[in-house]
């Protein structure tokens, strides 16, 4: 059912300018994920120039990654306050400034600050709003949009790696940083594409056409990017003021907690295999170029897997059960790692890389989609900020723990076993808890239906965790992607 045109304009357009926004998000997300990895090419030269050890150089990457994930809540607060566009443009500017000043650095400490903190912070300001704005522009096609946008990461990585090598050969590392700073300014262009759109403007229409709804809805008619403005009422309280910017009440949200725990667990074993794939290949006797080729295979399969997963997740069979699909993808990833030690020949490693690329792409494509699915586009802004700062710790811990395992046992297989088991555990946990969650949601839905027979139809926003269902009650039944058409019709009858 296509969104009706006249009289009943739904919120997310699911198309039109949304595709331009998707392009911007593609670029923005691509830079945010691929840039720290692409910098590795310069490290050897910088290490020689400043005369430091390899671990000191590696800190640059770690600080950048930590800042990108750790500054998530700040990013969320800023988006809640100002909307996506200004934040991304400022973020792009910050990245550019960071890298340009890095080109003139004279000590490793200055590099930490310029490349690590400033650029990292800029990338954080890029990443969150891009993901958030997809949720605002897409609903029916949201999984597909997420998959396509996340595909930016491997595409950018494949472009950045040879580009960085070319820049380095022709301009040295200082010149390359200067030019990379300019390239990062393109994030501002991406940000310019993020034309503001608010469910607030949509609410005006639905309020006009559907009377007799929840009293709270009336308050949402104010123009504003976020629905968490419901807390704006009586915001004298400091706690409520904080909540306006960053929705801490999410910690009472069952789905959010499930997602948080499952993901924090998963990230312990997510990135380590990529970091150690090339060294492991060299350890089994493969030469350097073939080892690098494995990573290329991974990236290419990843690139294809993400949009494909987006399409699958968007289909009518999978979308209502998307959480199961996500848990399956994580467990599949874990299974790949557990089987890796069995692959001893180069062909085995190629097979492993392809499956790993597939699994990695699947998980990444749905990473934010599942969160949006659980908490709804409204509270997603705060949710993504809180999730990224929690993941920050485990992301940073994962590879070093793997490294310690490898050093202690002298064998890579324990690292693979650890990563694989952590992910299978995370996948199983998510699967079971989401099964429980779906059942609870179904039960609450029944209770709500019973109450809606009541003329009083008041439901506060904090109940009814199935927020995409909630979106549909506010924005019009045709936005409900797939399920419960019957309920939608009933609401229509209630409204008119």
């Amino acid at each position, binding site marked *: 059912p296509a969104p009706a045109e006249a009289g009943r304009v739904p919120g997310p357009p699911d198309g039109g300018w949304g595709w331009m926004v998707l392009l911007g998000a593609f670029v923005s997300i691509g830079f945010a994920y691929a840039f720290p990895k692409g910098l590795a090419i310069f490290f050897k030269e910088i290490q020689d120039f400043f005369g430091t050890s390899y671990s000191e150089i590696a800190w640059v990457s770690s600080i950048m990654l930590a800042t990108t994930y750790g500054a998530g809540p700040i990013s969320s607060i800023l988006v809640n306050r100002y909307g996506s566009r200004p934040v991304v443009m400022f973020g792009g500017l910050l990245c550019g400034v960071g890298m340009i000043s890095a080109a003139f650095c004279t000590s490793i400490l200055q590099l930490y600050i310029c490349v690590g903190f400033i650029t990292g912070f800029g990338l954080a300001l890029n990443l969150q709003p891009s993901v958030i704005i997809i949720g605002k522009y897409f609903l029916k096609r949201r999984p597909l949009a997420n998959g396509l946008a996340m595909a930016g990461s491997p595409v950018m990585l494949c472009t950045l790696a040879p580009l960085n090598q070319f820049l380095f*050969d022709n301009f040295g590392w200082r010149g*390359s940083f200067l030019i990379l700073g300019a390239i990062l*300014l393109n994030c501002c262009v991406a940000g310019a594409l993020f034309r503001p759109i608010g469910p607030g403007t949509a609410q005006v229409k639905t309020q006009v056409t559907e009377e007799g709804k929840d009293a709270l809805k009336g308050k949402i008619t104010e123009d504003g990017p976020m629905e968490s403005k419901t807390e704006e009422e009586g915001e004298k309280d400091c706690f409520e003021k904080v909540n306006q910017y960053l929705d801490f009440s999410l910690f009472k949200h069952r789905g959010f907690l499930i997602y948080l725990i499952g993901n924090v667990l998963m990230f312990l074993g997510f990135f380590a295999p990529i970091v150690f794939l090339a060294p492991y290949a060299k350890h089994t006797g493969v030469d350097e170029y073939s080892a690098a080729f494995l990573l290329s295979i991974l990236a290419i399969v990843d690139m294809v897997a993400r949009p494909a997963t987006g399409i699958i997740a968007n289909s009518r069979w999978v979308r209502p059960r998307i959480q199961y699909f996500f848990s399956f993808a994580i467990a599949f990833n874990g299974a790949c790692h557990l089987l890796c030690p069995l692959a001893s020949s180069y062909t085995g490693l190629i097979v492993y890389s392809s499956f790993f690329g597939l699994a990695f792409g699947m998980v990444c494509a749905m990473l934010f989609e599942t969160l949006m699915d659980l908490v709804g586009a409204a509270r997603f802004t705060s949710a993504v900020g809180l999730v990224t700062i929690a993941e920050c710790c485990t992301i940073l811990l994962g590879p070093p723990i793997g490294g310690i395992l490898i050093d202690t046992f002298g064998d890579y297989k324990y690292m693979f076993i650890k990563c694989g088991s952590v992910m299978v555990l995370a996948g199983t946990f998510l699967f079971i808890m989401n099964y429980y969650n779906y059942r609870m949601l179904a039960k609450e839905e029944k209770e709500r239906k019973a109450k809606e027979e009541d003329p009083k139809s008041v439901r506060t926003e904090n109940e009814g965790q199935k927020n995409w269902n909630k979106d549909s009650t506010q924005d019009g039944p045709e936005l409900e992607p797939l399920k419960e058409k019957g309920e939608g019709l009933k609401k229509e009858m209630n409204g008119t």
Partner: protein
Amino acid sequence: AGFIKSPLSQKRLAQDSVELYCEAIGNPIPEIQWWFEGNDPNETHAQLWDGARQDRVKINATYNLHSTSTISIANLTADDSGMYECRASNDPDRNHLSKSPKVKWIRSQANVFVIERPDIAGNFLVGDGKVTLWCNMSEPQHTITGHKWIHKEKTLKEDNEPGASTSYTFEGTVEEHSGIYECIFEGNPQTRGQVNISVPPQVTAYKKSEHGNEGDTGVLTCKNPSFPAVTTWSWHKSGHGVSARLENASGRYIIKSSGNKTELRILKLDIEQDTGDYFCNATNPLGTGDATVNLRVRSRLAALWPFLGIVAEVLVLVTIIFIYEKRRKPDEVPD
């Protein structure tokens, strides 16, 4: 008193060393002595002490819970062949001169055979795109059970033939395969010979063309992986048709050299002065070799043009997007 461990008979090559080990137990703790009887029919038993035979003999004894003693003889000669006896006694009267016939010393014997080092002649032949190495043992004193060829700690070939000569052939040139090759004759004992393939320096540049930024330090490297090692390295620069030897005189050039690598560092690169070809020249006992490295100095502003170009592109795109949006706004209700 009784022996826990007895010394073992051994065969050794001349100039090698040998170690015999003896352990005895008793109450009180027995004393251990080493005695030697040579192969000469005229020789009688003689005791060995620490420092005997021109300090070639070393005896190390410990008397803790039980007695242990190790005798080692270095730089063996044919005269060291014979029967070595480990004697132990814990009789309090053992060293008494008058009571010696009554004292009991328990004895354990081992034979040591010193074999003359056989002459091993080794050489190599070049021909037909192949190189053949061979080793001949002139007078084998013992049975040979096999052969092995080793180069740079890798085993190239091994077999179980009993012959007194062995050879190894490979394809290639001596220039590519210079170094020290060892031929090993397995047996009791094991003997080794050596074949050296020596060539003039095969110098190569790490990178044929190097880049450096103005004002930074440029590093040019040449290496010589062949054998034998280089005794002298020198760097030359050609410019204006003249080849000048580079010294550290001006303070801008720093040269670090080792047997197989040399590094020229140029501080504060200057576009005009330092761009050009550099020659590294190596000399070793067999000849000389050289290589060329080209240095290009980038101006500081080289990266500036692409930078400005991209910034301009960004500004243009952002302006276009905003103008497009402003023009659409009056016509259309923003969704």
